[in-house]
């Protein structure tokens, strides 16, 4: 009885904390979903927690050929939306692949190779995380103009890689540091070279770290707004994050459309995390030593 009295408040506390946390993170998504399913007229009335009437007209406007808006047949935004979706996928995907590959090899060098100034160089790379993006925006813009990389996949990818590489390097470095060096030594004595050992022994065992880096980089790139706002002026590279706010026009804010687009934009990162999560298993090193 006593234990019940002492644990009950604690359990209630935990439950409340969890509920708050869930509401905090899922609340906005739920609100967005509700908005995307509410007819435009209702959106202007008293807000309600669930739609009194469900409509798919916002989604139709996004993906259909034409749709009805405020009684008029209008051109759908599918061409813009699909282009931006592809841009988002390409830039985030490229940034993820390039970042993870460089981090996988670079971090290994920072851990296992000995060269003068190694640790200083690493600290310098990681220290760039502390520099706010807007302080380098103007010089970066000048640089990109002179390199003719404005509004190109290469340009955007390069900027993303330079921004997200330090974190991935840091993460991979700690993954390698935790790995017993005897495994690599065993491989060298077995006749493997450095690169072979890295690719065939170290990387397979670092899969959880690589996947965590990939997820972090992809989510970061997917959610980028500032960089593409400046460097992706046209639909050649403009991603969803920049396109969606443009549904705000001079005389009408299309809340329904924005939220429908937002809900669709959540799907790719969610799928990616669900897919990669399966490989984020622990205990990969079991059986290596002792």
């Amino acid at each position, binding site marked *: 009885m006593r234990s019940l009295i002492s644990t009950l408040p604690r359990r209630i506390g935990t439950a409340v904390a969890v509920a708050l946390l869930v509401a905090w993170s899922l609340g906005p998504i739920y609100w967005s979903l509700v908005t995307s399913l509410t007819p435009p007229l209702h959106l202007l009335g008293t807000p309600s927690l669930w739609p009194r009437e469900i409509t798919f007209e916002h989604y139709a406007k996004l993906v259909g050929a034409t749709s009805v808006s405020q009684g008029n047949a209008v051109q759908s935004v599918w061409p813009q939306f699909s282009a931006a979706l592809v841009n988002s996928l390409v830039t985030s995907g490229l940034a993820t692949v390039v970042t993870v590959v460089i981090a996988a090899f670079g971090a290994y060098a920072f851990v296992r190779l000995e060269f003068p100034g190694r640790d200083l160089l690493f600290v310098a790379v990681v220290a760039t995380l502390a520099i706010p993006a807007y302080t380098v925006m103007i010089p970066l813009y000048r640089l990109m103009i002179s390199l003719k990389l404005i509004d190109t996949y290469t340009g955007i990818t390069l900027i993303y890689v330079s921004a997200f590489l330090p974190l991935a390097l840091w993460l991979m470095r700690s993954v390698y540091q935790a790995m017993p060096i*005897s*495994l690599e*030594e065993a491989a060298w004595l077995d*006749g493997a070279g450095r690169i072979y050992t890295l690719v065939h022994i170290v990387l397979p065992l670092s899969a959880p770290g690589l996947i965590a880096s990939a997820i972090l980089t992809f989510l970061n790139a997917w959610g980028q707004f500032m960089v593409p706002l400046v460097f992706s002026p046209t639909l050649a590279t403009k991603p969803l994050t920049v396109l969606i706010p443009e549904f705000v026009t001079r005389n009408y804010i299309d809340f329904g459309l924005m939220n429908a687009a937002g809900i669709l934009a959540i799907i790719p990162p969610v799928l990616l995390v669900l897919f990669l999560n399966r490989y984020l298993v622990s205990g990969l090193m079991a*059986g*290596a030593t*002792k």
Partner: protein
Amino acid sequence: MATVDIHRLVKRYGTEEVIHGIDLAIRDGEFISLIGASGCGKSTLLRMIAGLEDISGGTISIDGREVNDVAPKNRDIAMVFQNYALYPHLSVADNMGFSLKLRDVPKPEIKRAVAEAAELLGLTPYLERMPKALSGGQRQRVAMGRAIVRKPRVFLFDEPLSNLDAKLRVQMRTEIKALQRRLGTTSIYVTHDQIEAMTMSDRIVILNGGRVEQVGAPLDVYDRPANLFVATFIGSPAMNLIEATVRRDGDRLAADTDDGLRLPLDGYEVAEGTAVTVGVRPEHLTLAEAGTPGALAIAVDLIEPTGHETHVFGRLGRHQVVVAHSGRVTEAGSVFVTIAPGGLHLFDRTSGQRIDTAERS
């Protein structure tokens, strides 16, 4: 199979020298153990032979060819690590065949070699298992299998048994020795366990602070330790040491302690007045009846039965001594002992070096 020659080998970390010019010639097919307390440089020495540590000075040659600048993978050496270092994402068969695959050996041949090694080690039923599904002893065998499968010129063992429980350790000790006999491959074995070193080796190398204290066959080292370090390091319980000064009594030499004990030094030629340390192994102190000529009285502090023998801890004058008696000992306040013939070792206390009897030196 190969010889390994180590000449004036030095290892420095920055300015700190940890190995001070070691010389060692290892014969073809020999099983040699490096033994010493932790930090004595035995593992560093092994890793230098493997090529995993740089050589700061001197040379290492395998089969007469200097390998100082040869990469580990080109030295044709196999090493069994203390923590086994099995590749956790590869099956037992792939772990064992890894080195052959790297050498572009055809698949059927790898399969045959792995099967042969597995047969030798009793691993045949486990070939498809992953390392995590094996027990400690089995993992140890896989690590061995990985080493023997490619028939290297030299085996290196870095305390391979220290992670096993006592019973398994004894079993694997025998297995490794038998395997080495069968394959005849030159083997260098690092351990801190003197029983392992004594039982397995053709010769043992006792290291202390980055220097070689003595090299020799296990029993030679045991019977004739070169200095005080080896005398106390090898043997359990450790050798009893009694500090004394050489005195001449007529035409006979004796070692006198400052608490009035006199030990005759027959056959020695030592200058009178030399400060010496007399060493007697616990099993060379024989229990005797009171009144036996030359018997020494020991005040008993503690009697420790181990089953096959009994350790009697006590004081000989003011020196702590241990007597190992092969039978049972009943509780007593004091016992008398005599020193077995040839059971006395004499060391120069200043230099710590062994002093031999006149006919031996």
